[in-house]
């Protein structure tokens, strides 16, 4: 029994990591007042950028260096996703386009790019067939060598690739920056009321751009984790599924606090797979269980809006473009 629970917790954490990256990135973005619905697309781009980087490195013929095997996909994923977030920022901040529409277009584009290159990268540049980057995957999956010897605790909590721990570190750092630094204070001011922030001498445009791009980059790492660590270096079209939307749901569940989203991501990861661990479920009731993360999010959203606690509300200017000369 305890073994099953330990496996369940471990699997929940594994499922939670991409969600944690996505939601941390989206929280940073939303704190600047940008509701980026392009996160699912950005996470696809993060995944595919890392695949492209690793593919060219593995097929370049040089002796593979494990450090580079990790760093190249990592940087590709981060900068690829940042580039997507930059498109979003340019359209919504500089050109003041509608955020919902831009985000949805970004998702269409990102998923398209991901599935296109994932499906035809090797037929475009190589000998064809499906891509498998097992060696890169192995580098990402590398765990602490002594983790398995530490008993149940080691098996459950210490046996992940480094990206899982990085996601928690990033969430903690983001939480600290948002709540305990001047930059964080300014960023929150921009998201709550850009006009006031502007009057106080904060460069609203710069904050919005930086927050959205950095947030996008972090979210893209979720795609990287999914492809390189979880799958182990292969691309399946549409394999990432609806995790991007789930990450946005997690933002609400965590009440826009990265610290909460660490536990939230494990909970969501657990809800995502709980149907596999409840014995005796028929196929139909499994489908009902898969509904849980979304239902839980709706319930949280409703309770939050009914209680109207000031600190639990979304950033006040979320979803609105800021134009100094307006009104």
């Amino acid at each position, binding site marked *: 029994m305890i073994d099953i629970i330990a496996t369940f917790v471990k699997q929940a954490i594994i499922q939670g990591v991409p969600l944690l990256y996505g939601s941390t990135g989206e929280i940073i973005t939303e704190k600047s007042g940008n509701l980026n619905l392009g996160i699912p697309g950005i996470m696809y781009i993060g995944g595919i950028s890392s695949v492209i980087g690793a593919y060219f490195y593995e097929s370049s013929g040089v002796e593979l260096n494990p450090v580079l095997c990790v760093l190249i996909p990592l940087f590709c994923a981060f900068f690829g996703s940042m580039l997507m977030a930059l498109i979003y920022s340019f359209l919504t901040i500089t050109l003041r386009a509608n955020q919902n529409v831009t985000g949805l277009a970004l998702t269409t584009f990102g998923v398209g790019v991901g599935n296109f290159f994932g499906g035809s990268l090797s037929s475009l540049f190589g000998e064809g067939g499906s891509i498998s980057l097992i060696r890169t995957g192995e580098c990402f999956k590398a765990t602490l060598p002594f983790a398995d010897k530490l008993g149940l605790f080691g098996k459950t909590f210490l046996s992940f690739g480094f990206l899982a721990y990085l996601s928690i570190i990033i969430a903690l750092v983001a939480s600290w920056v948002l709540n305990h630094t001047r930059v964080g204070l300014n960023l929150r001011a921009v998201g709550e009321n850009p006009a006031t922030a502007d009057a106080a001498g904060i460069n609203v445009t710069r904050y919005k751009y930086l927050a959205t791009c950095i947030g996008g980059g972090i979210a893209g790492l979720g795609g990287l984790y999914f492809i390189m660590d979880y799958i182990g270096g292969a691309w399946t079209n549409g394999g990432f599924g609806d995790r991007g939307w789930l990450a946005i749901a997690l933002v609400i569940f965590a009440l826009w606090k990265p610290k909460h989203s660490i536990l939230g991501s494990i909970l969501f990861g657990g809800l995502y797979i709980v149907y596999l661990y409840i014995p005796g479920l028929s196929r139909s009731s499994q489908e009902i269980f898969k509904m849980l993360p979304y239902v839980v999010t709706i319930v949280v*959203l409703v309770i939050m809006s009914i209680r109207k606690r000031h600190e639990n509300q979304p950033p006040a200017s979320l979803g609105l473009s800021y134009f100094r000369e307006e009104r």
Partner: protein
Amino acid sequence: MSKEKKQHHEQLVRISKRDQMVFWKSWLVRLAAIVLALILCAFVIVLITGYNPLEVYSSMWSGTFGSARKVWLTLQKTAMLLCISLAVTPAYKMRFWNIGAEGQVLIGCLATAACMIYFGESMPPALLFPVMFLASVAAGAIWAMIPAVFRAKWGTNETLFTLMMNYVAMQLVSYFITFWENPAGSNSVGIINSMSKGGWLPELFGQKYLLNILIVAVLTVLMFIYLKYSKQGYELTVVGESENTARYIGINIKKVIIRTLLISGAICGIAGFMLVAGTDHTISTNTVGGMGFTAIMVSWLAKFNPIVMTLASFLLTFLSRGAGEIATALRLNQSVSDILTGIILFFIIGCEFFINYKVTFHFRARSHKKEVRE
């Protein structure tokens, strides 16, 4: 010196809000954006495939209009996209960011499929069709009304609420698929009533899709009139422009929100009805296939004008069908269409800026000042 320089620092680019741009001019800007986007897409195509982009575009054209069957298929897809776009428009005009059309249509599909499966072969058609229609309209309306009620009463964020409802609807469909699957174990419903054709919308003049297209055409005109000339259309516009104004002139905002979303969801239900009874005759979680999201862009691109939406949904359908066609012809992956659609959307979204705002460069003003100083 440097201090003096700073004093004379002036923004190089000044952005100001434009008054209403002349109608033809704004369309010229949009057209220019589409042309620019197509040129960029051509570069992308050459970069990826090395084919002549003109050939690619011409094969897109023949893929969409090559034969009578293809034309009908294109028209049918346009009609469905247009129908869902019409559905989301009143909500959007009210600034209610309903991104749950996908789920609302799907739940309409579910209701229609249920009626077809349970009553399709026992009820006479004269009774069956109204039952199917009403069931799907009610299902869509309820699905849209749930977030609307919470928004009206407690101000619950509707964007996120409706988004989540999409996935609840999808899981609900997968749940029912496990009961209805045919053949057993296939995890798909198969063609419903394939022998008796119970609950299949009739063919008009031998054309399978004509009835759907006619229904959507009527809906388009009705929606145009509703938004432009009815009192309710006026009310929802005022609520969208300014809730304070609406309250001041005595509009019951809660009532307007719930009523508008009922209409929005009901039309989504109709779309679901036509998708299952009119074209697919089956149901899966992918029946709507992302049209609920594309519709939002159509509605927004057309500035909520139902007549313009016809063009916008045609453009997007043409793109996705055409790109799908070249993907098959050039043995590329079908996702090319998403990439091209994405690029074109970025350009159209971006060009709105140049319609709404005026950009003035200040090279001359600056040099002029210098002269004065000297």
